[in-house]
């Protein structure tokens, strides 16, 4: 009996998931990108502890990330948040059959660069945590691309 029921349950679940609108799927994926992006943002701020009077410099002791690395990460995060904002606007305006938002490939490139910087940090537990968060972001961006790709 169980052998019969399991495929039935899986089939019903698959049909139900297929019933979700593409916009809903893209929204869910976008939210996962945003939360991963915010997690990277918050964690890097914690590693750096930017000086209030000069936010491009770090005050954390011991030094977990150099000022230059903090500035590089910040440049990429600025571009990533700008791309994320444009992606959000695209989701609001998105209609079935519309093309994949052009910001997705750029977001993928940005998070890949972010991963390279994270990998170049001195090997500390904080750096390892940052790498983990950046990789979660890379994965979330790939999922979002797939969500939009499936809409075509």
């Amino acid at each position, binding site marked *: *009996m*169980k052998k019969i029921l399991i495929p039935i*349950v899986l089939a019903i679940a698959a049909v*139900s998931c297929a019933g979700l609108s593409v916009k*809903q799927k893209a*929204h869910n994926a976008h939210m996962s990108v945003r939360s991963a992006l915010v997690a990277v943002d918050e964690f890097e701020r914690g590693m750096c502890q930017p000086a209030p009077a000069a936010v*491009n410099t770090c005050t954390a002791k011991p030094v977990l990330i150099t000022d230059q690395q903090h500035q590089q990460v910040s440049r990429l995060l600025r571009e990533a*948040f700008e791309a*994320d904002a444009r992606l959000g*606007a695209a989701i609001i305006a998105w209609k079935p059959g519309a093309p994949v938002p052009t910001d997705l490939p750029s977001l993928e490139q940005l998070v890949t660069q972010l991963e390279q910087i994270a990998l170049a940090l001195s090997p500390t537990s904080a750096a390892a945590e940052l790498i983990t968060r950046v990789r979660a972001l890379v994965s979330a961006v790939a999922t979002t691309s797939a969500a939009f790709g499936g809409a075509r």
Partner: protein
Amino acid sequence: MSVQKTQAWINLFAAALPMGAALIAGVTALAKQEGVSDEEINDITRRAVADSEQRARERDAMSRPSADAPTDHPPSDPEE
């Protein structure tokens, strides 16, 4: 019907009960997930966009080379 057949049917229903409960729970959860309207999605996304724009501005100040010595105050508009 023999006792053995009756017992077999009882066993089948006993096995099906938890599966049925899981099925109902799953379908209910999916139905709730599907309940989010486009308008709700747009509202949530608008708030997310505003937050991303704010974070982008903050990261812009953090991304300048050290020689620029930025502060956490917003830069003055050159057109002003």
